[in-house]
């Protein structure tokens, strides 16, 4: 039948026939132990298949001339159909063959038999890095020991203009002799560009669809490659050495963390995670300096990654980092003369570039900082010292890495701006020095927030992109800002009412003075507005605070100060959280803040503040999910206590918040335990007359009220109100909160006349400030007026409550309560109106699922 086949067809025909014979030889090898009908490709004799390798076929073969085994990569026919494609593959294979590197599998030659292109590659025995990773978590030093040679192999290829395009742990072989070899290189051009090359003509990427993308690269049942693909690969745009760098950093992240940086079950989810920068959490067991280095390689824009693999590897070199020594359990830096190693001279020069950090951060400095904090407060000082010294050390390390990176970039003739980069390093160093100088002042009012402030230090690695924000250099403005900071701190450390009020006054004075001095410098303005906003929050003025935060946020953004922008956004969440009408807005903002924090590497204190503020928003919302709020507060407590210790004012505050949330969640007994715990520490730290102690006492009173101990609750709440009135003045928002709570306890004891005195005073305050949360005040006033028989006032107050609810939204239970109250207040004056209200209340009660209220409404309608 085929005897007449033309010569033109013979080539293709033998291509299929060759493939058939290879299959037969492989089957023979598998089932009979040897290829009875061996197949030759060039001079190589095929032995058996070697695992899956993308869209090509990988065979183990023997080279009889040199008596060695080789891996033969058969190029998929679809990839080599056009003469251009064949030429490209041959050219790339030849380029690979010219590359000899200890960390790259050697390509011997490219050949062609019967139309089948194949590449002969060094056969490497051992197992791949994937298998090693699967063995379980490895210490970061071991991970680096495997990845650095692999990266060096990539770099060697990049030097020759070859890109891997499919770097992943599966493509790194660990030889039995310990050598690390990158395999399956380059030839990618023909074999492994699943997206562009295998798309059918006329199909757009959109039509291809995310599922299709995944499946294209699927080999057997394993979907691996998309997880390592850089955004530019997804986009089908130019792929270069920086694409390999991205894949390398995904793999390195995976090896260090035990999970890939971006998670997503589909290609679309993966891409979303990449573009949104949603990163898997970094474990505490791996130094953060490594994280910074890896994250840079994972930037979406190739321009923002490391200039090349060598710069990345230089930064990752642990032998160039300083040796650690410890004092009081804290790792510190010490200078170690650069050990002579395998590095090339250019890298040696760069090793020195970071060494100057030793001039300003050393053992003695760490001891001084620790001493200053301990002196400032023997209670919380030592724990803060551990945290602060750790931060300062990490910062110094990062600075040294950045300095080396800047040096390496300049050595490697990458386009760079040496003046800008050096200036950036200098500014970073200045920012850092100011933190140390402040710490050494040993002023508790400043040091109480030192650890939180250090979270706002800009990452020196930003200098590699010269992204360091400018440092404000107006001494006057800085002094005012420091005064406000000190006031804020003083309010949380100093004992007694006088101290609190005078601190607030000093802060206000400085706040007024700073803005004109700050002028047009956005870096200064951002800091000033941030501190003023917090002052307003502390003074119970969330609306005013919001204005300052918004201005500060704009300024922080325009001065590229990412940490400050994140911190302001976190505070803004709280400013908005108090307004139940803006719950959705607060949530959106909290999500945005979470993204900003993730980009900063999730600083623990800012993260715990965000959790607390989220929980506040939930507690203030119409349908308060109090259980969720409790969970958030618990997480905040863990983070704060781990960072600052149990005695720190911030920890006490979070503990108090948790207590309050437990109250709302109906877990009053647990709340009381937490609050007693907090009070014990608070009495030591703040004293009995401090308004924050009073806040805790008030919350404790609430939990006792919930447990039915009304007598003790009244005592606690009254004391809390008295302390707050004394320390904050009668008009303060927090004082009003205390009034409301005390009134609630009195109302429960049917002491309505006493309660009304407090409620009417409080209502005046609330109305004066046009506060958002007026509803509860009106309800309480109305109900108590009803109880004492003042029906006019009851109708007025409950009517106002209803209007507030209609405007801001309220739960059906709230509606039922108010309508029932109104019905009672109208019963004698307007029975028909009362009946309608009663029926409405009944509907509300049914909707709310409250049998108690439903029964009350029924009783009312039945004539009580």
């Amino acid at each position: 039948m085929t005897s007449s086949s033309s010569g033109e067809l013979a080539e293709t025909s033998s291509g299929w026939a060759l493939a058939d014979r290879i299959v037969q030889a492989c089957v023979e090898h598998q089932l009979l132990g040897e290829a009875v009908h061996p197949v030759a490709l060039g001079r190589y004799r095929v032995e058996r298949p070697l695992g899956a390798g993308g869209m090509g076929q990988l065979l183990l073969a023997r080279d009889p001339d040199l008596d060695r085994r080789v891996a033969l990569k058969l190029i998929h026919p679809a990839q080599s159909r056009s003469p251009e494609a064949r030429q490209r593959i041959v050219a790339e294979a030849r380029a690979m063959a010219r590359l000899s590197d200890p960390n790259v599998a050697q390509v011997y030659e490219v050949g062609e038999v019967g139309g089948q292109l194949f590449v002969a590659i060094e056969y490497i025995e051992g197992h791949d890095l994937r298998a090693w990773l699967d063995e379980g978590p490895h210490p970061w030093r071991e991970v680096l020991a495997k990845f650095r040679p692999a990266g060096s192999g990539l770099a060697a290829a990049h030097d020759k203009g070859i890109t891997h395009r499919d770097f992943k742990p599966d493509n790194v072989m660990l030889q039995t002799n310990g050598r690390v070899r990158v395999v399956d290189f380059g030839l990618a051009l023909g074999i492994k560009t699943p997206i562009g090359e295998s798309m059918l003509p006329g199909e757009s990427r959109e039509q291809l669809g995310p599922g299709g993308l995944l499946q294209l690269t699927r080999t057997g049942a394993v979907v691996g490659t998309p997880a390592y693909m850089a955004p530019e690969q997804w986009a089908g745009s130019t792929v270069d050495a920086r694409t390999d760098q991205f894949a390398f950093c995904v793999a390195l992240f995976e090896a260090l963390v035990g999970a890939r940086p971006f998670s997503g079950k589909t290609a679309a989810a993966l891409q979303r995670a990449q573009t949104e920068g949603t990163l898997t959490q970094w474990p505490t067991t791996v130094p953060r300096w490594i994280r910074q280095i890896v994250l840079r390689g994972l930037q979406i824009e190739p321009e923002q990654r490391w200039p090349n693999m060598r710069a990345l590897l230089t930064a990752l070199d642990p032998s160039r980092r300083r040796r650690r020594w410890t004092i009081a359990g804290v790792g510190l830096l010490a200078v170690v003369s650069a050990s002579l190693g395998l590095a090339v001279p250019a890298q040696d020069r760069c090793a020195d570039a970071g060494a100057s950090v030793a001039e300003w951060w050393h053992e003695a400095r760490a001891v001084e900082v620790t001493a200053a904090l301990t002196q400032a407060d023997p209670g919380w000082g030592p724990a803060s010292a551990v945290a602060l010294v750790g931060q300062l050390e990490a910062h110094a390390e990062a600075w040294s890495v950045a300095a080396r990176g800047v040096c390496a970039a300049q050595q490697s003739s990458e386009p760079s701006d040496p003046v800008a980069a050096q200036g950036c390093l200098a500014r970073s160093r200045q920012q850092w020095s100011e933190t140390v100088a402040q710490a050494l002042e040993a002023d508790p009012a400043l040091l109480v927030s030192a650890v939180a402030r250090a979270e706002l230090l800009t990452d020196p690695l930003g200098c590699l992109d010269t992204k360091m924000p400018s440092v404000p250099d107006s001494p006057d403005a800085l002094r005012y800002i420091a005064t406000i900071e000190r006031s804020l701190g003083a309010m949380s450390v100093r004992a007694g009412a006088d101290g609190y009020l005078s601190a607030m006054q000093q802060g206000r004075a400085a706040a007024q003075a700073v803005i004109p001095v700050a002028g047009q410098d956005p870096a200064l303005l951002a800091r000033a507005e941030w501190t003023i906003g917090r002052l307003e929050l502390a003074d119970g003025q969330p609306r005013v605070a919001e204005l300052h935060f918004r201005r500060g946020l704009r300024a922080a953004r325009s001065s590229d100060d990412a940490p400050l922008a994140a911190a302001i956004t976190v505070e803004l969440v709280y400013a908005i959280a108090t307004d139940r009408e803006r719950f959705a807005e607060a949530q959106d903002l909290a999500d945005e803040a979470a993204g900003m924090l993730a980009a900063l590497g999730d600083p623990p204190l800012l993260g715990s503040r965000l959790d607390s503020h989220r929980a506040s928003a939930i507690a203030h919302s119409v349908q308060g999910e109090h259980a969720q709020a409790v969970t958030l507060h618990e997480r905040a407590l863990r983070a704060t206590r781990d960072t600052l210790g149990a005695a720190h004012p911030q920890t006490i505050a979070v503990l108090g918040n948790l207590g309050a949330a437990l109250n709302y969640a109906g877990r009053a007994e647990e709340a009381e335990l937490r609050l007693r715990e907090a009070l014990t520490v608070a009495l030591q730290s703040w004293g009995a007359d401090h308004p924050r102690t009073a806040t805790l006492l008030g919350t404790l009173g609430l939990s006792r009220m919930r447990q039915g101990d009304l007598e003790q609750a009244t005592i606690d709440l009254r004391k809390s109100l008295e302390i707050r009135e004394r320390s904050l003045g009668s008009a303060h928002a927090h004082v009003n909160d205390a009034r409301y709570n005390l009134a609630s306890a009195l109302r429960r004891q049917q002491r309505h006349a006493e309660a009304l005195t407090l409620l009417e005073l409080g209502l005046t305050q609330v109305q004066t400030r046009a506060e958002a949360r007026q509803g509860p005040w009106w309800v309480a006033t109305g109900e108590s007026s009803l109880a004492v028989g003042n029906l006019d006032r009851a109708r007025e107050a409950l009517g106002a409550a209803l209007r507030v609810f209609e405007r801001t939204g309220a739960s059906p239970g709230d509606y039922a309560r108010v309508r029932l109250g109104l019905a009672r207040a109208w019963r004698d004056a307007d029975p028909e109106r009362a009946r309608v209200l009663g029926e409405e209340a009944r509907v509300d009660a049914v909707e709310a699922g409250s049998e108690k209220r439903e029964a009350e409404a029924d009783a009312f309608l039945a004539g009580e």
Partner: protein
Amino acid sequence: MQDEYELLEAWRAGDKRAGSQLIAARSREITWFFRNKVFDVDMVPDLVGQTFLRTVTARDRFAGETSFRRFIYAIAQNVLREYLRSVDKRAREELDFLEVCLSDLQPRTMSSLQSEKVQVQALIEALRQVPIGDQVVLEMKYFEGMSAREVGDALGIPEGTVRGRLARGLTRLREQVREQLEVAGSRGTEVTAEDVEQWATELRRLRGPS
């Protein structure tokens, strides 16, 4: 085909030469059974190897009353089913060969068979777009040149059923070939049964005899 069973028995008894003869006799056919049904060319030797291995291990469960060809095709179909289930989660639950096409499982995977002839390539790809059960009978006809009766014998189904599947499959196939050609940009008109027959003949010529 009593002699193939004899070879199998000899192979089981340790005669490698017999094994080699059996593989030589059937490997091409079984290779072509899998070639257009995988998503990864590397799987072909593995699946063919599995099929032969199971002829050895499943021999006892097969009384020998059927032809060896039917025996080995029955195993090959099981191997294929297991492979498809391992590759695709959706296929794991329920894999109805009469409903599901390869292109449903992995729409954008190309065949491991590649031809320079546009029409032949279109035919190859189109075969992956018909239900797998129809693909099996169509490929036996087009790749191996088997008659409906031979196909029925090999698969153990009545000849009438084979004819029904061939007819149903051809209708779908013609439409798919037309689409493939359209995508390749070379033809937009109707594809007739004669066209398909002609390109299949060409494909067999390129393939060479089993």
